[in-house]
């Protein structure tokens, strides 16, 4: 693996991190204000569909983006109505939005375009294309032969769509809003102690709706990015549970913007591996070191924790070790023998690589997060006490 491979991997990580990051920050604003939002997924999906459809029909991707944001904000407002105004259960309203979006996007897409529940492929001028920075190389062959610095500049820095740069900018912006503005102070307060906000004479309802609206805008951008920048059109369930991974990243980041960036980059690295190495081949010995190593690490970690952690993570480690042994055993034959089999190359099943991000999320949430304290008033509607 040369340097360029790593640059490509980093490049893909950043690209795949953007929808996660936007969704994660969307959840951050909502949850920091005390509204749990499990409907990130549905909002992204609806936005992905509508922005692709509008981009296709109008030929203008900015109109598409606007439409995506619009539908996502609309769903957010519905969530807000259910959970803020009518003081309903926030999880149920979120789940409803997810089902609603998953079903309706496909049905409407079929009704409008009759292409099996997808939108037609977007022409290049109805998409967000990569921005080429001055002096950056664009042809793959040129990049391969360029100096490492040039490779980094051309591949990693340049060539992303404008939404990527915007998405990255939302991190410092979110941090600044949360910790340096009056609005941010009140937003954080309303998720921790709405009664303190209320008695200070500020409207809890208005603040929470503002937070939910911001959540909608960010989810809308995330969805539009998926269907108009990463892909050229909408396909069924194209968000691929990113809304839920974003929630996991949010917990991992303990509801802090810069940490959210880190968590999303980490999770997206696995998406990037899937994109960059769909047919990854590794020597058996490396596979074994990786699998058994992570098993040992997990067990060592679990031993310091509760009995239940030891059982769960320890069991998982045993499975990993078993897989490692099977991989080795599979390569052994009379001709080669046990030792030489270690240095055979094996193709890692693509299903395994595809499931890595999800697997990683489960492992992280199973115990590597540490103590994550959600906003205290999260999930509860605010009712004035008598």
């Amino acid at each position, binding site marked *: 693996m040369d340097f360029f491979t790593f640059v490509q991997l980093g490049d893909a990580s950043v690209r795949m991190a953007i929808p996660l990051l936007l969704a994660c920050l969307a959840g951050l604003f909502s949850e920091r204000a005390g509204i749990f939002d499990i409907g990130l997924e549905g909002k992204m999906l609806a936005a992905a569909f509508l922005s692709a459809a509008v981009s296709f029909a109008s030929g203008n991707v900015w109109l598409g983006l606007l439409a995506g944001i619009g539908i996502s904000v609309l769903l957010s407002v519905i969530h807000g109505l259910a959970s803020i105004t009518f003081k309903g259960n926030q999880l149920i309203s979120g789940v409803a939005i997810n089902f609603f979006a998953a079903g309706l996007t496909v049905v409407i897409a079929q009704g409008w375009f009759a292409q099996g529940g997808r939108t037609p492929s977007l022409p290049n001028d109805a998409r967000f294309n990569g921005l080429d920075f001055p002096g950056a190389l664009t042809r793959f062959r040129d990049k391969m032969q360029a100096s490492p610095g040039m490779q980094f500049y051309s591949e990693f820095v340049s060539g992303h769509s404008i939404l990527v740069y915007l998405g990255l900018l939302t991190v410092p912006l979110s941090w600044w809003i949360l910790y340096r503005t009056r609005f941010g*102070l009140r937003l954080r307060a309303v998720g*921790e102690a709405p009664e303190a906000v209320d008695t200070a*004479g500020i409207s809890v309802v208005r603040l929470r709706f503002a937070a939910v609206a911001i959540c909608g805008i960010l989810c809308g951008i995330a969805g539009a990015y998926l269907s108009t920048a990463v892909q050229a059109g909408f396909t069924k369930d194209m968000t691929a549970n990113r809304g839920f991974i974003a929630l996991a990243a949010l917990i991992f980041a303990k509801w802090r913007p810069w940490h959210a960036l880190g968590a999303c980059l980490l999770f997206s690295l696995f998406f990037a591996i899937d994109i960059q190495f769909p047919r990854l081949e590794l020597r058996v010995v490396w596979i074994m070191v990786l699998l058994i190593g992570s098993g040992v690490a997990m067990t060592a970690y679990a031993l310091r924790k509760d009995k239940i952690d030891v059982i769960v993570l320890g069991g998982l480690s045993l499975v990993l070790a078993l897989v490692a042994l099977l991989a080795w055993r599979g390569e052994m034959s009379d001709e080669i023998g046990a030792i030489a089999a270690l240095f055979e190359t094996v193709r890692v099943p693509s299903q395994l690589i595809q499931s890595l991000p999800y697997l990683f999320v489960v492992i992280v949430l199973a115990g590597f997060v540490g103590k994550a304290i959600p906003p205290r008033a999260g999930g509860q509607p605010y009712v004035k006490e008598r």
Partner: protein
Amino acid sequence: MSDIAPAIELVGISKAFGPVQANKDISIRVMPGTIHGIIGENGAGKSTLMSILYGFYKADAGEVFISGQKTEIPDSQAAIAAGIGMVFQHFKLVKNFSVLENVVLGAEDGALLRPSLAKARKQLKSLATEYELNVDPDAIIEDIGVGMQQRVEILKALYRQADILILDEPTGVLTPAEADQLFRILGRLKEEGKTIILITHKLREIMDITDTVSVMRRGEMMATVKTSDTNPADLAERMVGRKVLLRVDKVPAQPKDVVLDVRDLNITDDKGVHRLKGVSFQVRAGEILGIAGVSGNGQSELLEVLGGYEKATGEILLNGDPIDLTGAYSDGQSRRARGIAHVPEDRQHEGLIMDFTAWENTAFGYHHDPKYQRNGLLMDNAAILKDAQEKMGRFDVRPPNPLLAAKNFSGGNQQKIVVAREIERDPDLLLVGQPTRGVDIGAIEFIHQQIVALRDQGKAILLVSVELEEIMGLSDRIAVMFDGQIMGERLPDQTNEKELGLLMAGMKDGEAA
């Protein structure tokens, strides 16, 4: 006097919640630069009245005048603008914010925080010297004690330029020493010309620091008098509507054999915090041991262990035989079978099931009693109902209707249902937690009499209460808990509130003398 406009004047305030008339045509005048007490039983409408003044509720009728000006208060923002600040019983603070951030919240100067925080920091410094309200502006709320948190609430009001300060039951969470400190601060505020309204049900506080006092009963204003013209017995009578005995009437105890012997009890909770640290004590038959302490110093855990729903290490002997603390018999059922009855601290969550009827509640925990069984398989509801009816009659539960859900009784009557259930079991040991929390004075008198009567039958009683007056009046011996330890034991007639207060604040036994 008459040429100065009152700081606050309420005229004909009425407020109803559904069929309940919380405030009935209430008028009150509070002169500037005075401390005005409002006293009344729970549910008398004190808090409702103040919530109307602070813009939390809208009055159905009536007018508010601030410094002689008719003022509409549709929301808290308007109340703050009118110079009213409120310190709630349950603090309205953001726990993981700093003191500074809490003070600034809602009173920021602009869209950006930095200038507001800088200004508030300067302001806090001058308020601190002016009113002796020292608080570290960068401390996080959850790291500082309740006394400090209360100061932050007062600072919040002062930072918003409040001239009128309303305090709702401010001493409920404080040690006596902290309460004295609070009163000094209030005195200081009064000197500076602030007007203070103190809502409380503690007669002593009213007598100690107020200039005038208003008495409320069942939503009505009974009287407003100068504090110097009245006395506690008079106030109590006006609150309840009849003569009340403020002191518990009892003969000296006749302690006999040791019933409960607790030896070196320890609890460490999930977070690794040591909740009980080597607690040892004894309770004899025919005596009441009172455990005093500010809430949260291990008394609840102690009751939970004894009641059988918390595990602990150590040894507990009941009538000389050990009690199972961790094994198969360490549950409430086994405890009751051994003759331990328990009136839990939190009657609404631990003592009763609020949505169940009174008669069902009178049998909880004792369903296995043969007299409640039929054919050994079915519950004999008719028997339970009849039993409940008798109990409710004996304990003067009002209304005496066993078919009513527990939540429809007042606090005092709910407590009587619990006390009736536990005392009527003829236990060897009665555990009582906060028997009169949220209970009106009339019912307090009755419940105290029942506890003393049980003692006189030769039963052992362990009383846990955060009300020092109750502990002093009811106990035959007093143990003080602080930070999971017993700081010392005293006899009620050989100690005073000051000494107990020092022990409650963590002073060592020798130092507190």
